């Protein structure tokens, strides 16, 4: 099943590696990825993943990353946002 996540992260050289490592290790495959630097120098990452597992197994782990300040799971309908701020 496909899931979309929106992450806000602190700008650190290795932060993308951290996110991708957790994603892979927890059993999710990245199918789409876009990152940009915000005006406040934070980073935004839109990531689409594919997995049999429940998305919370990934979003909970991403939320634990120190440099990830916010991780939102975007429901398939994309009508409302499920906010799980750290």
């Amino acid at each position: 099943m496909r899931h979309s996540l929106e992450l806000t992260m602190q700008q650190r050289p290795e932060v993308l590696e951290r996110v991708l490592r957790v994603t892979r290790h927890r059993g999710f495959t990245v199918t789409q990825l876009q990152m940009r630097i915000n005006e406040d120098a934070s980073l935004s990452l839109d990531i689409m993943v594919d997995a049999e597992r429940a998305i919370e197994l990934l979003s909970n782990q991403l939320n634990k990353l120190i440099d990830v300040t916010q991780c939102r799971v975007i429901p398939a309908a994309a009508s409302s946002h499920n906010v799980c701020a750290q």
Partner: protein
Amino acid sequence: MIRGADAVIKVLAAHGVTTVFGYPGGAIMPLYDALYGAPVEHLLSRHEQGAAFAAVGYARASGKTGVCFATSGPGATNLITSLADALLDSVPLVAITGQVSTSVIGTDAFQEIDVLGMSLSCTKHSFMVTRIDELIPTLYQAFAIAASGRPGPVLVDIPKDIQLAELEYRTPLLAIATEPRAEAGDVEAARRLLAQARQPILYVGGGVGMAGAVEQLRDLIRVTGLPSVATLKGLGAIAHDTPGYLGMLGMHGGKAANLAVQDCDLLLVVGARFDDRVTGKLASFAPKAKVIHLDIDAAELGKLRRADVAIAGDLRQILPALAMPLNITPWQAEVEHLARKHRWDYRHPGKLIYAPAMLRRLANKLPQDSVVSCDVGQHQMWVAQHMWFRRPEDHLSSAGLGTMGFGLPAAIGAQMARPGATVVLVSGDGSFMMNVQELTTIKRRRLPVKILLLDNQKLGMVKQWQQLFFEERYSETDLSDNPDFVLMASAFDIPGRSITSADEVEPALEQMLTAQGPYLLHVAIDDAFNVWPLVPPGACNSEMMDEPETRT
């Protein structure tokens, strides 16, 4: 103005660090120079893995954050196993590694490896300091992250030029990390489930000790009368003579513990995480039970088992809110009956030394202030089954990672943290050799660590599985060419003796425990005996195998 290296030592002192463990090398020389004559005591290990395990033992025996140093390249890679161990067992640790100078990072310089990259999967968090003004705030953050929430290891990689650069020492202002707080509604829901339950049981993990919630847990048991079981890391959280306490559950758990959990209608999970060694076949673990799951780490809630009520928060606050008298007398009687029916049997006819009986005897002989550190394998499970502990910090065992070679350096760290305590290492002939170089550390400091070496001339646990599940094909588990352990210890000025028969056990334990300095008691145990009971891989916890009638 002081050097970055001097600032590191100042930050350690500011965090109350009095002892660090480590091994010097090229890229960390400025830090070792700053250490020279500093008030922080340094314990030289003989392998960086030993240094980091000593820091783990120090942290686990004291509740403080352990600190270790290593140089770049091989020094740092040698830390990796210990960091992984600390990650899986949630041990607060700050590891500081030297790195080649910033100007040559990325050029494959001598002893350069991407330690930050390597650390990603085996630390709670990690940093590489690339600017001198980031050094002090980064170290402060490292200590805060290591000890807060669910504790864990934090690595700080400091290039040599940063260690040498000058700065003005300023204490940084840090934002206070917010811990999750329990919602009143969730606590109410948990109380309702507890009140409705007819057959509730407490499943207690290492999180209780890490949260400093042992008293709150014991109060909860006193008030509710809840029967209880513990994980390997949870041992010591509940006093062993508590009514309804059934000891360890899981693959090598007691029969009564597993049967009671399988039969319960409510599982109150406190600081535990449904590890596969605990649950056996997950789908059939406590199949009738509703679940209340309490943990500081929200990511553990619902990870493996859906909870009816899940609360992320500080156990010291949640547990008292659940303490209320329960009406579960018939269930308590049933649990007592199970406990009596499946009590350990220490009768073992014959002259050979029966390890479980010896360990029970040792537990009963240990003074109040004692720490038992163990390695990994059969002896580790026997320690968990047959010894008992006053507090979780009195039992050091590599639980999550199951790292052979953990025990000796962890015992060294524990002895440094608690110099007045009797520290006993219970090791096996396989594990002991994995960090045996740390005997030098004992010799160097005359640490009075007592070593109880259980020798069955085998990699016993692997051999047990070969016997049971691999048609007795004993591939590479024979260790009958072990060294003469007593002779080897003597090379490190550690006296000792060897025993082979059951009637020697009592005087030999006495001699070991009353020895002034370090001591090695080498015990040739009955090698026919395995660890029982055992839940076979993939089986449900009620399908425990017992000791077969005929032994090999």
